[in-house]
């Protein structure tokens, strides 16, 4: 079912997931379809290269895979090298500082329905810069970013930004995926704490299992930058939280999960997730043929 457009409108929507082919792009496209149907304009950004485009074969951005359909008025980010093959009559709005593996990038507006290759900034600060420019200039107030989690957390600190987490689960891996989702939910719900107090330690950079073991016994709580810096598995996290507190200096607003199921039914997966985690799913099978799903944020 397509998710409710109101869930995305007027926001910076960052779609991540646990690796390749996890349904990020599918969910991003579903969000886009939902917004289009509601008559809302938006900007589409890929954090890096849209699937199918290779820096070694930039011509692959000219046709076929890696291109997305755009409606007139939609904003997107692409490489200058792909402008010629874009069929949506792009109007250049801004040049992105620096360059990518595919050359310089630009923010463009589609002046008619058509297609273009999405190529996003490679550096996190440029991704944030692009989003900020789009919002500040009033080109649109809704942005959808399709990218891996470590690429989008900087952008997650932007106003009205929130992160979605897309997964694809099948009979062979659904228990593992459910565990990952519960772990993720635990991480995004860690409390925010900016100031270190007595008996608290601030950890810069990744917080790993060995890092957790090395925390001095007198330290009662640890603060890490944000949840993406935590590299503890479920068991390690539970063990750590059993004796100490774990907080994040910057909370990332979490929008919810998108789930695409394969070879199995929703009740079985919901049971594996547990009530709390299942309640955080905002989209089940965005391309299933059962109309619209209302989301209660």
């Amino acid at each position, binding site marked *: 079912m397509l998710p409710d457009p109101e869930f995305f409108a007027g926001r910076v929507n960052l779609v991540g997931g646990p690796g390749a082919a996890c349904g990020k792009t599918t969910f991003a496209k*579903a969000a886009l379809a939902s917004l289009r149907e509601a008559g809302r304009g938006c900007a589409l950004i890929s954090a890096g290269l849209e699937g199918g485009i290779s820096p070694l074969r930039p011509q692959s951005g000219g046709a076929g895979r890696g291109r997305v359909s755009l409606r007139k008025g939609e904003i997107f980010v692409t490489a*200058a090298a792909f402008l*010629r093959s874009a*069929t949506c009559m792009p109007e250049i709005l801004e040049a992105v500082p620096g360059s990518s593996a595919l050359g310089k990038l*630009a923010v463009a507006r589609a002046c*008619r*329905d058509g297609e273009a290759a999405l190529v996003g900034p490679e550096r996190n600060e440029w991704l944030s810069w692009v989003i900020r420019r789009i919002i500040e200039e009033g080109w649109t107030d809704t942005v959808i970013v399709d990218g891996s989690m470590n690429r989008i957390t900087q952008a997650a600190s932007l106003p009205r930004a929130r992160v979605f987490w897309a997964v694809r689960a099948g009979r062979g891996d659904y228990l593992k995926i459910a565990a990952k989702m519960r772990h993720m939910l635990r991480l995004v719900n860690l409390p925010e704490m900016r100031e270190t107090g007595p008996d608290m330690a601030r950890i810069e950079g990744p917080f790993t299992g060995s890092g957790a073991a090395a925390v001095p016994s007198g330290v009662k709580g640890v603060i890490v930058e944000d949840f993406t810096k935590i590299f503890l598995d479920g068991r390690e996290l539970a063990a750590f939280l059993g004796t100490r507190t774990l907080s994040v200096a910057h909370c990332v607003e979490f929008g919810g999960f998108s789930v695409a199921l394969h070879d199995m*039914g929703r009740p079985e997966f919901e049971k594996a997730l547990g009530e709390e985690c299942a309640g955080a799913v905002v989209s089940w099978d965005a*391309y299933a*043929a059962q109309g619209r799903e209302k989301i209660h944020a």
Partner: protein
Amino acid sequence: MRREITGASACSPSAWEFCRAEEFWALQKPATPYASDFLARRETFRDKGDIIAAYDDTDAYGRFALTHSKESSRLDRIAWHLSRMPRLPSVFGEDSSGDNAAREEDSVPYDAVELFLFKKFLSNYRALLTLVDDEALKNRFGMEFHSEGLSAALDSGGSDPETFQVSERHDPGLAPLRARLRDLAEETAREKERIAEKLAAEWGLDFRGRDFLTLPSDEALKMAAACGQGDGAKVSVEPYDEHSFVVRPLPDARLLEAEREREVLREKEAELENRVLVGLSRFVRSERPNFARYLRAVLRFDLARTRYALAAELGLARPGLDSGGYSLSKGRFYPCEKDCVAIGAAYSPLDFTLSDPVAVLFGSNMGGKTVVLQTALFFQTIAQCGLFVPASSFATRVYRHIEYVGEGGGEKGRGLSGFGFEIRSLDEAWKLAADGPCMTAFDEFARSTGSEEAEALLSAVIEAFASAPGARSLFATHFMGVARLPRARYFRMAGLDLEKAHRVLNAPEESDSGPDDRIRLINRMMRYSVEEERPGGVGRKRSDAMEIASLLGLDGRIVAKAAEFGERRADAAEYEGKKPRTGP
């Protein structure tokens, strides 16, 4: 006469670091990438004309800003347009002078993004020229505009002055092509809608916004069986998983024909667009000399605006560069002043005048003689950067080299012993002094060797630098026995107000205060003024080290013994005729 900004940097990296120039430098907030790039080079000018030009530019912009001070929106808009000027493609080579030859890729047309940058630059440049309504000022900065034709050509594409696309106005041939493409797009959308409605009516499926749907197996198989029969909508059906299939609407003949025609037209459109890009690229390249002028004007104007903004914010004064000496009045060494504010200590501005080539500065520990050296170098460096300075007045001359010899001057990693490094630094400074007027700060030179040899070596160095043409050298040292030489002046820091220090630190309420508190109190009682040594005399023979050690709480027996050793040594030196020389 207009001057262009030229010249290599006079200030060495070690001198820059020593005098903490970076902390002041970083206060500059340029608006354009061109001024940012220029400031990133941290250039200290060697040419007096360059410095005067920078000062005059600052003053000229300042007069303009004051004239419009009641109309702040004009100044804000100027800053806004400057900030929106993009970095242009590197058609002018590494620098922005634009004088170098055409780039190798001249045959390659600019892409739409590059042309967008030219358009955005020209748009903001024109707006800037409109806002700067003072013809004399425009003339001073070379703010001209001769690219009406190119501007008009670039303005023909894009919905506003800061966007760009190839439009029908660039090539009338695009108009019918795009009109037909629009019609085809509408026809295609209508046809897709018709197919979607048909599927919705026949099968209850809602394909709006989606290219495919997943359906339960039984429904999907039913659709597959019915597909192609009668005039029903056609779909493709393929397995998704054990329970469902993926169903996609298939285009009919009308849609396929429309798609084929779109492809053909789109190819023709791309060809025409490319022709426009080639033509516009040629136009831009023909304007290369104009762009070079515009970039120079923008750079110079933004630098003047940036420097004036800093001068206005901090109340800076224009230095004089015609002095034979060095005269600083109420000089505020910004980094130190900032430190003082941070710790709640009072900052004493520095008055320091030197007409001779060499100044030797003695002083107690913590007495601030290094800060005086830093201050002297800071003002010289900042002034030669073309900036006004935080002082009530500052008069100096321009030096070809500004150098530093002392601890921390890049010695790490060179694999030299302390003394080896000192001699090597001295040798480098001496060679530079021979190259042209050189201002050098020596902080505790010869600190790494014994006091007698150090005093001898230091005396020889002072004499050498005192006779180097155009050199000005400042020495901070503990060694009070250095020779008193002609063309050198000898100063000491006023140091600790001993009477006050004893009164405060020996008061009952301070009896429990620890070393850190005492250091803070002593710092507050230091007098950071510079006093010249009495003519013909050696002044006080010792610094305040013993007193300070005592005030800091060092065991009184050790302090007393140290004083006793000191007295004995002085007596022996006097007896052996080794007492400090008092003149040539």
